[in-house]
Structure formats: C-alpha cells, structure tokens
C-alpha cells in the first residue's frame, strides 16, 4: 500500500459512493443523512449515473451547523416521512456520512420505527472516513440482506431452487461496464442451465429478485477481493456455498475456465443440469469467438504500419489481472508494469500478485498497488520499453499517454472522454469488444 500522505487523481471514492449500489437496484432510493455536498460529490465522480432516484433526486438531510451541534435525528425522521410522500420507490436505504457518524446519531433505532410499520427501509453506516466505495458496496448489500431480504425468508425457503444462483461480480458504476457485464454473465450462465440473480440493473428483477436471494442453491463471486463479505454473509446466513473466480473472465480462455468452474461446482451442489448441453454451449460460444480471432490474426501479425506491442494498465485488481491474461494470450500485446489503483487491502495483495504472475511462465509482470494514482503516473512516466505502447486507464491517464506518445484506451473511472452504456468487457463477446475498442483507437491514428 502507498506510503503517500495524499491520493492524487483518485480512481475510487469514499463509502458514500455505495449510494450507486442502491441506485443500481431498480426503483430503490438512497436517503443520505450527511452533509449537503456528499451526493453532489458522488454524482460528479460517476457522472451520468443518477438512475431512477440518485443524484439530485436523492433525499438528504443536508447537515448544517445546527445538526452538527444538536444531532440530526429529528431532521432525518422528517425527511424519511416526507420521502414516502414525494417519491415512489420500492426500497429505501438510509446512509450516513461523516457528519452523522462523528455526531453519533442513532439511525438504526430511527429506521426501525419505519421498518416496524412495514416500510421497506434499511439503515447503513457509510461514513466516508470508514471505508472506500469498493468496501462499502459489501456493507450496503449486506445491510439490505440482513434488514430487508431476511424479512421474506419464510416465503423464500433457503436453497430451495437447485438451478438458481446469486451472482456477485461488478460493482455498479465503479465498474464502467457493469451493466453489460452483468447481462453477459446472466446470458452465459443461462447457457449452461443456471438462472442467475444479478440483482442490479435492468436484467435484475428489482426488489422481488432481492427477496428471492435465499432460494438460490449457491453463489458465484467474480472478484479479486471486493464483494467477498457478501458471499461470506450468505454462506453463514442461508448455508449457500460459493465458487470464487478471482478476476473478470475476458476473452475465450478465461471465460471457458470460468464457465467450467461454475458448471462443476453446480453439479457438486446438486444442480439439475444437462452437462452435455452445457458443454456444447461453451464450445459453440468459443467457436464463434475464434472465427473472429482467425479473421483477425493476419491483421495482428501483418499490419505493417505499427500496432502497440506492450501495455500498462491502471485499473482495479479485477481488470488488471483479466486484461493482462487476455491481451497477452489472445491479442499478443505484452503486459509490462501494472498499477492497481483500487486501494486493495494488504491481505489480498499477494494472491492478486500471484494471479497476475500466473499469466505467463516466461514473463515476470511487475505489479504496483498504488491508490495514489498521481504517484503511479510518476513511476510510469519514467518507464520506457521498445515499441509502441498502450495505456489502459481512466481519463487522467489520457494526458500521460499523450505526453509519452502512447495509445490510450479509457476503461476506468473517472471516465470523461468516453461514454459507456451497455457495453460488456466480460465474456467471449467482451473480449472481442476490447479488441474493437483498442484497434478503433489505434487505426484512427492513421486517418
């Protein structure tokens, strides 16, 4: 972890950023018990991400000096009561900012008043100084499971549906491709015979789907580290075991490994799956993928005017590991120094480093865990390898790429130079899309 006293060019935000976790649930609303600027900061970090009732729509107590001195619990009571009058929502998640946490307002008891009246409301402590949004995503999801999903457990018997799974993968909005990725995971899992609850975005079934979480036979965690507390919580709570895939499956190799891992786990968990059909599906997807790569091979090998031969990635651990593997084996771009900017807790760093270094037995890939991205850039500024370089990172890195004369692909937050709607980078089709994006940008330099 960084020894800096500062974070320059932050690539993530504080716990309050998990309001996007709520925004990603159809018809859910975050209610902020916080200072007046928190919502604006989060909206500005993610951009174009207000969803149904996020951004300027989210209710907020807007702490003033009065609340700092006297506490803000009565103000919060008033705001919650009136939220029901003004906004039409299915789930309310009350989140605290730094001010409420330091002042010590007891939101749990207050929210219980509303919950006891049958309101679908949840309280969660998300003071910005306590956690990052990568960590707070799990805190918020677990709060919803513990305080809301648990109310419906009698009509949603744990592990009662053999072929249903809960998927915990992309963090909504922090992963710019979350929407597309979740849709693609759902399609792929359905191809091998599993019905996946993706819980966020248009492919989820909203609060009804959340209520049915206990029914799933088992869970799937796709992540290098974040989201693990959710899988652990569900294991303890409903006895749902989980299979853990440590990076995002991008391209054919890793997607096949991922689907085979899930398939074998599902069979062990007693899912009723036609194994042959599942394997046929994987083969079909893979064949379609390689048809494209075969057409492309001559371009990658013969294009005589210059293509990038090496890559530096500044992203979260899941993308760095995934893109290293994909770009080396399936595109032929060699990963050099890599920068993980997500504030990975120390206890996970060695496993992640090992995962990245298992990419090739012929190559060492230096990995820097550096949430101070300004410092990461300082390191990268001094590095030079032979050939045309590619940087994959956030909008901040575009300036560095220009300075170094490298190609640049925007794929991380903050992302001001690119609009991402429902594009996926996960899966077979995601790999193809990464290729399209890289070479669209490379070829446009010849126009």
């Amino acid at each position, binding site marked *: 972890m960084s020894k*800096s*006293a*500062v*974070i*320059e*060019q*932050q690539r*993530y*935000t*504080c716990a*309050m*950023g998990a309001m996007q976790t709520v925004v990603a649930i159809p018809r859910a*609303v975050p209610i902020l018990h916080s*200072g*007046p*600027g*928190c*919502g*604006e*900061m*989060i*909206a*500005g*970090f993610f951009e174009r991400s*207000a969803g*149904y*009732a996020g*951004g*300027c*729509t*989210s*209710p*907020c*107590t*807007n*702490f*003033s*000096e009065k609340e*700092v001195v006297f506490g803000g619990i009565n103000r919060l009571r*008033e*705001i919650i009561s*009136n939220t029901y*009058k*003004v*906004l*039409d929502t299915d789930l309310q998640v009350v989140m605290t900012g*730094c*001010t409420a946490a*330091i*002042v010590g307002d007891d939101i749990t008891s207050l929210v219980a008043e509303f919950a006891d009246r049958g309101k679908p409301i949840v309280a969660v402590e998300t*003071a*910005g*100084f*306590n956690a*990052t949004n990568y960590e707070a995503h799990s805190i918020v999801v677990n709060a919803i499971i513990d305080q809301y999903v648990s109310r419906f457990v009698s009509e949603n018997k744990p592990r009662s549906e053999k072929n249903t799974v809960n998927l915990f993968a992309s963090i909504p909005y922090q992963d710019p491709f979350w929407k597309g990725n979740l849709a693609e995971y759902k399609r792929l899992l359905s191809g091998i015979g599993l019905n996946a609850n993706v819980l966020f975005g248009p492919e989820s079934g909203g609060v009804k789907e959340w209520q049915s979480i206990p029914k799933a036979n088992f869970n799937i965690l796709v992540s290098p580290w974040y989201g693990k507390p959710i899988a652990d919580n569900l294991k303890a709570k409903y006895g749902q075991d989980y299979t853990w895939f440590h990076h995002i499956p991008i391209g054919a190799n890793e997607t096949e490994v991922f689907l085979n891992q899930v398939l074998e786990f599902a069979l062990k968990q007693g899912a009723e799956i036609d194994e042959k059909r599942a394997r046929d599906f994987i083969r079909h997807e893979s064949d379609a993928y390689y048809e494209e790569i075969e057409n492309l091979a001559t371009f990658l090998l013969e294009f005589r005017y210059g293509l990038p031969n090496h890559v530096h990635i500044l992203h979260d651990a899941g993308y760095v590991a995934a893109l290293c593997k994909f770009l080396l084996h399936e595109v032929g771009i060699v990963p050099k120094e890599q920068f993980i900017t997500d504030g990975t807790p120390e206890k996970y760093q060695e496993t992640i480093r090992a995962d990245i270094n298992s990419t090739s037995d012929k190559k060492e890939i230096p990995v820097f865990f550096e949430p101070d991205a*300004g410092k990461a850039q300082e390191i990268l500024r001094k590095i030079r390898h032979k050939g045309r370089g590619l940087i994959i990172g956030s*909008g*901040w890195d575009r*300036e560095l790429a220009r300075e170094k004369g490298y190609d640049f692909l925007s794929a991380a937050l903050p992302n*001001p130079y690119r609009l991402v709607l429902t594009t996926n980078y996960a899966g077979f089709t995601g790999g193809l899309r990464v290729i399209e994006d890289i070479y669209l940008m490379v070829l446009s330099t010849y126009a």
Partner: protein
Amino acid sequence: MAKTNLSLPEVQIREIRINSITGYHGDAEELVRSGRCGLKDRERSFSQCMGCATSKAACMTILIQDAAVISHGPVGCASCLHEFAFTYRVNSPLRNVAVPTPRYIFSTNLTERDTIYGGSAKLARAIREVHSRTKANAIFVLTTCASAIIGDDVESICSEAEEELDIPVVAIFCEGFRSKVWTTGFDAAYHGIARKLIRKSGTRRSDLINVINFWGSDIFSEWFEPFGAKPNYITPYSTVESLRLAGEAAATVQVCSTLGSYLGAVLEQDFGVPEIPAAPPYGIAQTDRWFRALGKVLGKEETAEKIIAEKKKKYMPRIEELRRELRGKTAYVTAGAAHGHALLDVLGELGMKAVGAAIFHHDPIYDSGRPENDQLAQRVADYGNVPNYNVCNRQEFELVNMLNMLRPDVLLARHGGMTLWGAKLGIPSLLVGDEHYSMGYEGLVNYGERLLEAIENDEFVKNLQKHARMPYTKWWLEQPADYFLEGGPVI
C-alpha cells in the same frame, strides 16, 4: 455595506453577512421589495442533495494555471473535482492557453484513525509532498466537514508550511455544513486569495480591469480595448502572479453578481479598486448602463457612448428579427442566482414571457451594498414582474413540480442535471455553459438564435417524454410547490 475582514481566516457565511436566503415562493417583485426590509428565510421539511461549498471553492482554485489543491478530508470530498480538470482542458482554447497542463488535485484521504488522533500531521506531510511533486506556485488547502469537526488547525499548518516552502499555502474554510448557500464556497476561496495572494502595492494601473468570472470565452479583451485596457480574469485561467495584480487594477466588473459579490467588495474596501456600480450587461437596458458605468469609472464616458451607438447599429436589426420570431413564447429559468436574473433579462429583451423561475438562493443585497448591482430589481423595473418565482436551493422536487404545472415552451438551465426534467416532460431545454455567451448586444443575438434552435428541434424531448420514468408521486405533482416550505399550505 457588509464589512469585510481579512484578518480572520474564515469568511463570514452569506446567511449572516448579507442575509441571503434559500427558501421563497412568490413573485420577483415581492422578493425584491421584501429584500429591502428584512426577508425571512423559509426552512424545508423535505430536502434533496443540495451540493456544498467545497466544490465551489475548488473550482475557483483548481483552475488557476499554476496552483495545486489539497482537499483535507476523506477521499470522497474530492470525488467530483476531476470535472474541473476536464473543464480546464476543454475551455483552454477560449482563453488562449496553448498547452493546458494537468490539474493538480489531491486528497489527504482521512481515515477513521485520523478522525480520532487528528489529521494535522498528515496534512503537514501532504503539503510538503504536493510541493515536491508539483512545484506549484501556490497550494490551496480546502477544509471538509470531517476535518472541521475533528478540529484540525488548518490555518496554523498552512502558515507554517508557507514559511518553510516560501510559496503561498492558503487555507480555505469551505466545509459543507457551515452554510446552506452554495456560493459561500466562492466567498471562501476569494477570501483566502485576497488574504494571501493579492498584493497591496499602492500602484494603480489604468490599463487593467478585473473580471470576476468562470471559464467563459474571452470577450472582454475586445470590449475593453477601446478603453485602452485589458481584462484581468479572476480566477479561472489566471496565474498566481496575475492574481497578485488584482489589487492594482483600475476597476472590477463581474459576470455574475452573486459569484463575485464578496471579492468585488474586498477589492474595493481593502485594496481601493472600485467595483463598477452596475449589474452585469445582460439585456440592452443593462448593457447600456454597464458600459456607461464603466466609462464613468475610467473617465471615458465618450468611449462608452461610442461603443453603445456602434453596437446598436450593428446588432439591432437582427435583434428585432429575433424578437419577432420569439415574441410570446414562454420560458422557465433555473439557475444559481444572479445569472438566473441575467437570463430573465435576456428573455425580457427578446420579448419572451418568463412564466417562472427556480433560483438556488437569493441575496437581498450584495456585499457592495449598492442597489445598482441588484439585477433582479433591474429586471423587474426594465421588463416587468416574474410570477412563480421560487428560491429553491437546488431542490429538484420543487422544480419538477413547477415545470409540470407551467409547461413552458422552453426551459433555460444554468446548472447540470436540471435539463433532464424539462426533457422528461417534453419541454425543449437549453443549458449554455459559457456565461459570456448571452452578454451584451451580440449576446442577445447568440442566445436568441440558440433559443429558436432549441424550440424548433424538439423531436428528441418529445420522444423521451413518451418513455420517461417519473420517480415523483402523482400526489406530489399535484401539490403547491411550497408545500414543504415553512409556513406553507399545510404546515
């Protein structure tokens, strides 16, 4: 006139300094009238995310060419500041900055441990690290709710660092909970700049005029040229050195009276630079007054008359045409404060009917204390009253309620996010980011043409309207907009 006091590290908040308010429902004329004799604020019993002072202070410091900015707080309090790096890069050609350098934006990333043991030592280290990394000519430190409540002595830490590093290290007190008025963040930044950067030299230059503005296009070079002067822009695209010169200028003008209210007064009271006694030049009546006031301050009244005559000759025919095309069309305005008044002027001049406005806050009188700077009063006098005038503190639910009721031909917005609601209701919506775009005679032509274009090309909003989701309840949309305001219909 509000008394400025540069000996204190913190600026007094607007609610206390100039009696600014954030809740009102009525019409513009009544607001202006009651502003003169004690205006009472109205609290809300429902509220949405408002925005706070810290990002406003950030905007006035990050965009200084050779400065670095440290947000002293949890990492979340600097989340949205990357947007200013984008703005800086995109608008640099408008200000003749050939090579826009990356913006230096830092967070001290306060964690729970720091809230217990204090964040002072971390901030002290941070300032030195930023200095060695950036070699910036000034470092600004922005406070946040967390650093303010735990009581870090930011002023002393900055002063010590300043002595050691030999560059200005400026503490800006802009924690979000201090004020409900978003523009207090601008005041806070200007206060720090005035205390630590602006030089008291005793020299007075007749060729330099301060322009307190955002990042709009450089129209003032051309405007000031006949007066033999050039603009000193404050603060976007300024340098630490050009800010130092602000105290030597011949006069100060503003593009938005609520933005520069405090700094204009400080420059006048503490540095002897007169602020011209006229609201910014939006609409013909105000443009004429503004040029005359400028000419008077500079002792060049004839130049002003000549400019006015030339501009009339050049632009009036097109303005008349636009008036014919726009006459009777209805519009609704949502904006910060004075720029909203400016847009209401433009609408009045173009013969359009302003059917209402949702303005974030209201300053009954600016820091200068001069009624001539009151743009809303001028608006009412020049073009008549504006009904359905709400001071809404950026409360979207009130805006949606009013828009739904009034259904104007066009929505004019100044701040991000608001146009969505016009579009969802099928109302053509226009946001012009360049605050200079609608200024002066040429501005009426620019803006008039954009208005026509927005009203004519409504296919996108009409289609979106058919499919838009509305999170607001039917009940709410049928209530009076001040339902949740103190003293409102049911409370």
